[in-house]
């Protein structure tokens, strides 16, 4: 049976407490009709993957503004693969130097949104990604 609503986990890996962006995006996705679970701050990659599994989400949106994105996002992607959840789409946002984006895409992050990205763009990118799978 095909599910109607896209399920998204918005997550804050690491110790960064800047949650303005994550909460705004989470709310915009919800307003766009998606089912959104927000983890809160200070999540380990392990906790995020565990929640994604329990909540059976289509997409994980990772937010990090502390500069620890390479380490933390890679670990989330690694752990998803280990759990056989490679089909879960991972998108990301935060304070991310443009030079890091190709490296993030290479490890399997499907979309990276920097500062100033409109929520409408994030919504449509996620809809497109989910349709494409």
């Amino acid at each position: 049976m095909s599910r109607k609503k896209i399920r998204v986990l918005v997550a804050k890996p690491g110790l960064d407490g800047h949650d303005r962006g994550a909460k705004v995006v989470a709310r915009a996705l919800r307003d766009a009709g998606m089912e959104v679970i927000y983890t809160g701050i200070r999540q380990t990659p392990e906790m995020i993957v565990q929640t994604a599994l329990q909540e059976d989400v289509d997409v994980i949106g990772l937010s990090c503004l502390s500069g620890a994105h390479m380490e933390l996002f890679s670990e989330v992607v690694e752990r998803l693969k280990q759990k056989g959840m490679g089909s879960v789409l991972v998108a990301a946002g935060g304070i991310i130097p443009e030079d890091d984006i190709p490296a993030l895409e290479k490890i399997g992050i499907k979309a990276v949104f920097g500062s100033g990205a409109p929520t409408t763009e994030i919504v449509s990118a996620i809809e497109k990604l989910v349709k494409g799978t």
Partner: protein
Amino acid sequence: MPRKSKEEWVKDVLEPALKRSPERQPGFSLTSGTEIQPLYTGEDLQGIDPEESLGYPGDYPFGRGIQPTMYRGRLWTMRQYSGFASAGESNRRYRYLLEQGQTGLSIAFDLPTQIGYDSDHPLARGEVGKVGVPIDTLRDMEALFQGIPLDRVSTSMTINATAPVLLAMYIALARRQGVDVARLDGTTQNDILKEYIARGTYIFPPEPSLRLTTDIFEYCGQNLPRWNTISISGYHIREAGSTAVQEIAFTLANGIAYVRAAIDRGLNVDDFASRLSFFFDAHNNLLEEVAKFRAARLLWAKIMKERFGAGEPRSCMLRFHTQTAGCSLTAQQPYNNIVRVAFQALAAVLGGTQSLHTNSYDEAYATPAEEAVTTALRTQQILAYESGVADSVDPLGGSWMVESLTRSLEEAARRYIDEIDSRGGALAAIEKGFQQREVQESSYRYQKEVEAESRVIVGVNKFVAPYSKIEGLLRVNPEEEKKQVDRLNRVKEERDPDDVAASLENLKKIARSPENTMPAFIRCVEACATVGEICDALREVFGVQKEFLIF
């Protein structure tokens, strides 16, 4: 010529003009929604004598500034928040900034240091040296201040949950440098309540956290008379998306909670109040921001006098640091940020700030590179030495608009503080998520306005154009984390383990007693106990706080 009233002008002149050509948008408003009038005149201040309600500079209620001379006497302290990679690298940056004419230090600690984890903790992975300098032990603190005599510099430390640990290290370091601790000048942010509202670097539950805050008040009152024991911060609340009114209201409500806690401890209000300091954001709307700083000063003076019965004028002075709005920096056309920062810094100066951090244009991408931070510092120097705005006190005083906005922000913030009072005070309201929810609503509204283009952000939703990438962004080498862990391991091998264990046991004992914890913290850091070990000892005694999650 007969004098028209404002009402007559509106009817006879403005309205016909508007019929011919309307205003460029349906309305104009402040961040908190208050409508901005097309024109302010003396009639908007009817029934108010600004000179009386503001006071003279240096006089209660300090609406026009806390010093009689303001910047004619001494310029604000130019204090760039800085720290990254390692104590050694950060020390080089501090010395560079001091050489460039910076007048005070502001230490950024990395997240593991702020949240009480050592650099080798699994939760520290990827975070070591990223948003600030990693400090595990007193040895790192020594390296951080290598060649910087502590009696010659004032140092602000953005540290909250672990404030007593870092302050203890600063005191221990002063002793090692042979500096009299009574001469230490600086600030510990030490504002845990706003960490629960925004920013998120709390460790312990509110009650023991407030006890540690008060321990610092008491200890510094007796030993470090020049230390600013707390920097009650609206900055992070604003950055999380609040309006200007919410920023001052929630901050002053937190201030009320700290003063109450200290009085409940038995401290005399005039013994600690003059060492309280504040920290605000300087956002985009220049005149609203100027009014905000003035309104905050007026409100705090009255709170201290009327609510807490402070007798000393110094107890009623709101002294504050300002940082330009990080959240206003754009990744798009990043050099525009230099201009934004300059206007925001101007607001801070016109608002009478005591110290200022100007953001760097590259911060929508990374922590600032040296060239970017130099431009940011030069912006302050140009304001100070070229613009002329520092040459007279409160130059906007008496402007009908600024006085009207000051009054309107003061009243709106007072209503919010009343609301928080009716909810049992700042802490009770935070536990119910009141402030967090209000901030979230504002931040979402702001985002919607940007996306609807009713709020213009140049280069983002208007005047969009291709832009060239910033070259030379600061990157923290991942090797730094490994090097820091090596340093930590070396210290652990060299120190006396019995001494460390005894100092931690002593800290736990004192933490369970009503005694002041500061001497016990100093003993721990002098034994080279790590930030993580010290915090683990306290986690055992105090427990840990989960997020007051509102979504």
